[in-house]
């Protein structure tokens, strides 16, 4: 499966697609990027006259690249209507603010993928290569047969 195939199988669209590019992917992990468009709606209110990317959005970027892209690669299949994916837990520390127009790189390493649960150690780096966020994220991929 090519990186482009994985992107086309993501179950998201604008304004909630937070993956631009997959740089590298294998059974042990994934690395990908996303650039925050300054026109994204949430910047209008977070914060008033002082746009900073919300932590929940940073978490979503880490989950979409680090967990969902890797999950699609691991199950090697399209996420169709018989497959349910769900976030089950996050434990993230936010170290640096991320501003509009910043390009971030997410690096995810698989801790385990067992019984439909994928748990990863995920790091987000900013353009300077500094760690902006770090933590663990887990989710479930379940077939509704």
């Amino acid at each position, binding site marked *: 499966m090519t990186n482009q195939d994985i992107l086309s199988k993501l179950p998201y669209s604008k304004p909630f697609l937070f993956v631009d590019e997959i740089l590298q992917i294998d059974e042990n992990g994934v690395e990908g990027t996303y650039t925050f468009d300054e026109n994204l709606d949430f910047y209008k209110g977070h914060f008033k006259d002082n746009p900073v990317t919300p932590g929940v959005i940073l978490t979503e970027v880490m989950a979409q690249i680090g967990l969902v892209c890797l999950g699609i690669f691991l199950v090697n299949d399209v996420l169709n209507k018989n497959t349910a994916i769900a976030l*089950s*837990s996050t434990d993230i520390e936010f170290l640096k603010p991320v501003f509009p127009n910043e390009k971030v790189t997410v690096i995810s390493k698989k801790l*385990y993928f*067992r*019984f*439909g*649960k994928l748990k990863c150690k995920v790091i987000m780096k900013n353009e300077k290569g500094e760690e902006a966020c770090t933590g663990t994220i*887990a*989710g*479930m991929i379940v077939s509704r047969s």
Partner: protein
Amino acid sequence: MNKEQTIEELKNIVKPYIQNQEAFDVLTEDTDFINDLKINSANLVDVILDIEEKYDIVIDNEAMERMVNVKAAMSIIEAKLSEKN
């Protein structure tokens, strides 16, 4: 395998994941992980992985699906341990 000791070991394993303290306090062989202890399905995977680590066994999908309560967990652990020897 000592039954009381195994129940005690299982209590220690499930403790971080339970959402119903009352059911945990009166845990017996018949206690159901999901319906009684309110362990969610994602955390049940961690319970299984912790059991694998504690007893140095490998639990397959079929055994995982049967592992719904304390009694089933004990019988699966016992079976997997006897396979090893």
